[in-house]
């Protein structure tokens, strides 16, 4: 279906273009006047009218067809009374049988019937898909071809259409933000309808209860997110303790001491560190660092759990090193050379120049970089999911198991999602907190960095 529909659309593009081109040439010859725009613009005009309506149909069909067919099949399914069905599994079975008749052996008659229903619906859908695409393409081309007169200024129209397309592209970012805010707030409101916002923000017990039997309500669980916030904070602090000294010192060394050659080799290597997927860091934390932390804890007499804030935080710190070092490097490099020369000129050595002149001058920029790094650490998911644990634990001991906002979002959404259950909805409330905090940190950081830049430009 995919391949042939592409062929169909390609044929549509090609023929509408050729048609528009030759048609306008013919029309202008008939009238004996030169067309106002170049023939290609008339061709593009026909093409746009042929293509865009068809594409809209194409995408909505591709997206909704399976959904609709499945709904029809399920609603017509001859359920046997008393039997318990899992809709997803049932559908998978029906699809399997429909796609591969050899699986039909030993399946119940209802399923075989449903499978043939499914295949026939698919066939109908395919045929009507192709016919409707072709009809819409033809209609579009027909509409456009009526306008193919030499006095019609096709280029203006095309350029206006292009503007519309460009404006649409730019507004995708706005729609994304609106989508994020809308979905977070909408689901959070549903959450706060069942759980009080004060409990969520100030209570210290996180026990997202899953109703097992009927009659039990999910609201019996408790949703005090303080331990989660505390865990997030603890992991973030550990990460910053690792990343700030290493990242900043690396940046200073690269910016002020290292030779051109060292810079040229080390910077790409740090970029590798920055480009490694976070799940790889998670693996590293789980396989190498967590056992090490556990052994270390035992050796100094602390009972460390196999997953701990320390292991996750340390690895997260490593992940953030290149982030801090490259941002600080930029900031340090933008300190004017004249300040450096002034300090060196009165006989200060490099370390003194850096500590007494450059760092104070670069401080706002560096603080901005730290804030961005903190926001990065708070939003990071995979390392903590794998290495920090899932148990809410209000503790300051980094050897213990803690959990973070991102981990709880993942935990709440893995497996069955029921959108009438506060447990599932809590993910959105946590997501809202995360979004607001990171946005806040970013805005402040960008402001600081911007003001800092303006100072030296």
């Amino acid at each position, binding site marked *: 279906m995919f391949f042939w529909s592409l062929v169909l659309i390609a044929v549509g593009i090609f023929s509408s273009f050729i048609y528009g081109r030759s048609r306008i040439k013919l029309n202008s010859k008939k009238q004996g006047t030169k067309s106002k725009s170049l023939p290609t613009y008339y061709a593009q005009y026909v093409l746009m009218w042929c293509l865009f309506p068809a594409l809209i149909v194409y995408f909505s069909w591709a997206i909704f067809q399976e959904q609709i067919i499945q709904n029809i099949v399920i609603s017509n399914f001859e359920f046997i009374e008393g039997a318990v069905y899992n809709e997803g599994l049932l559908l998978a079975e029906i699809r399997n049988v429909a796609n591969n008749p050899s699986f039909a052996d030993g399946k119940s008659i209802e399923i075989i019937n449903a499978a043939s229903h499914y295949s026939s619906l698919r066939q109908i859908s395919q045929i009507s898909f192709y016919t409707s695409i072709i009809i819409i393409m033809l209609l579009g081309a027909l509409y456009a071809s009526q306008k193919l007169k030499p006095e019609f200024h096709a280029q203006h129209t095309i350029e206006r259409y292009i503007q519309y397309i*460009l404006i649409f*592209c730019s507004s995708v970012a706005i729609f994304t933000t609106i989508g994020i805010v809308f979905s977070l707030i909408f689901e959070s409101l549903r959450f706060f309808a069942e759980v009080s916002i004060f409990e969520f923000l100030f209570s210290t017990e996180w026990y997202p209860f899953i109703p097992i039997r009927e009659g039990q309500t999910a609201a019996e669980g408790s949703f005090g997110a303080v331990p989660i916030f505390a865990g997030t904070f603890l992991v973030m602090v550990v990460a910053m303790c690792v990343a700030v000294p290493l990242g900043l010192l690396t940046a200073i060394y690269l910016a002020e001491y290292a030779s051109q050659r060292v810079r040229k080799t080390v910077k790409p290597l740090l970029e590798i560190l920055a480009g490694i997927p976070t799940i790889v860091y998670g*693996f590293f934390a789980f396989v190498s660092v967590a056992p090490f932390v556990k052994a270390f804890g035992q050796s100094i007499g602390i009972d460390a759990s196999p997953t701990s804030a320390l292991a996750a935080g340390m690895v997260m710190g490593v992940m953030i090193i290149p982030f801090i070092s490259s941002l600080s490097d930029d900031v340090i490099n933008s300190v004017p050379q004249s300040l450096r020369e002034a300090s060196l000129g009165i006989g200060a050595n490099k370390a003194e120049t850096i500590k007494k002149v450059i760092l104070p001058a670069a401080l706002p920029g560096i603080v901005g970089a730290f804030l961005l790094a903190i926001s990065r650490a708070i939003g990071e998911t995979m390392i903590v999911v794998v290495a920090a644990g899932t148990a809410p634990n209000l503790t300051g001991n980094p050897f213990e198991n803690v959990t973070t906002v991102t981990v709880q979002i993942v935990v709440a959404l893995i497996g069955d999602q029921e959108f009438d259950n506060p447990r599932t909805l809590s993910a959105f409330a946590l997501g809202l907190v995360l979004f607001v905090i990171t946005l806040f940190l970013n805005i402040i950081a960008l402001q600081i960095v911007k003001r800092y830049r303006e100072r030296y430009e």
Partner: protein
Amino acid sequence: MNNSVAKEKIVSLRKKRSLEDMRFKYYGFTAMCLSLAVLVFLLYTIFSKGYTAFQKTIVLLEVDYNQEVLKLTPDSSDEEMEKGKFFRVKKQAIENFFPDLSKSDIKLVKKLFSINVDNEIKDYFLDNPEVINTKQQIWVTAHSDVDQLLKGNSRRDVPEDRRKLNDIQLSYVDQLVEENRVKQVFNNFFFTKADSRHPEIAGVAGSFMGSLFTLFTVFILSFPIAIGASVYLEEFAPKNRITELIEVNISNLAAVPSIVFGLLGLGVLLNVFGLPRSTPLVGGSVLALMTLPTIIIACRASLKAVPPSIKEGALAVGATKTQAVFHHVVPLALPGTLTGTIIGLAQALGETAPLIMIGMIAFIPNIPTGLTEPSAALPVQIYLWVESAERGFQEKSAAAIMVILIFLFMMNAIAVFLRNRFERKW
């Protein structure tokens, strides 16, 4: 007199200061080396844990393709052969694997073999139908527990109840090693099969294809939209508050945690629009929205780099603004844009959390063939394997990491190549 004391003081102070300077430089150097050492250690960990996954253990099994047992005849049609009773052949082969096995021993022996052995016996027969009524020595896949033992990943000196293989099974394995009835070969399953509950036949082909489909979606969506948005913002947008709002929005969107994009996908794409769960279509859409700011920023930079004199030249011969931009500026900015897009795609390839949110974490045992089929993705597959208790999956996860890192490396190499080859210096 006073003067010389002061001088001495200064000299000693200078020594101290220069020592301090050295020390500071040394701190920086150490920090840099430490960061790089972590990188090396990380890569070493992955390699040392993962390289064994590229090999699998196979065992020599004598199979009697008896026509009675198979319920086939030499002139059965292909279809009938498909339905031959190969599990009975396998059962027989295992019963005769070692001489004089008791019933309970047979159970233990059976656990030395992969669940896939039925298929291997069948495939061998279908490839060579002439072997009917003969005894054949064929190499079949061993169970993951045997595999891990022979690779040295699981230890035999722990107490029996904490081992996967008990003492009797260990002695069987030792016997096999002694008789050269077991060896290690290249693990083709790792590259040709999708996920499985059984480590020895789990592979990355399914998640790799899932990732490819996802990246394809990301590219199809984000590349044109990013170009459109950048061209508009850079060349056409009037300088007003709406434009400013869009720009601020894009820079803030770039810093939103990826997991929030996952919630967007779940809350809007799945719940509101009803797109199919766990599919590359949804995963790709979410990642496209996520990488869009990155690509737009790169794209605008390369549009900015095209000197305005080119556009002026076109305008001066009477091109409209649209013509000047699309005929001259955009083609010149294209290599830079493409480089930015590939870097954005590389970022999307490694993203895990948003895909978990939209359900690409489901267990998918077959290789996806389209954008709207449920599938896994490489990073999520890694996560699933890291989390699973079975030892056999740990080397798989490390090996899958190697695959993803090589993939990433190639994408970055292409980006660098494009940059060096096509990007113009003005």
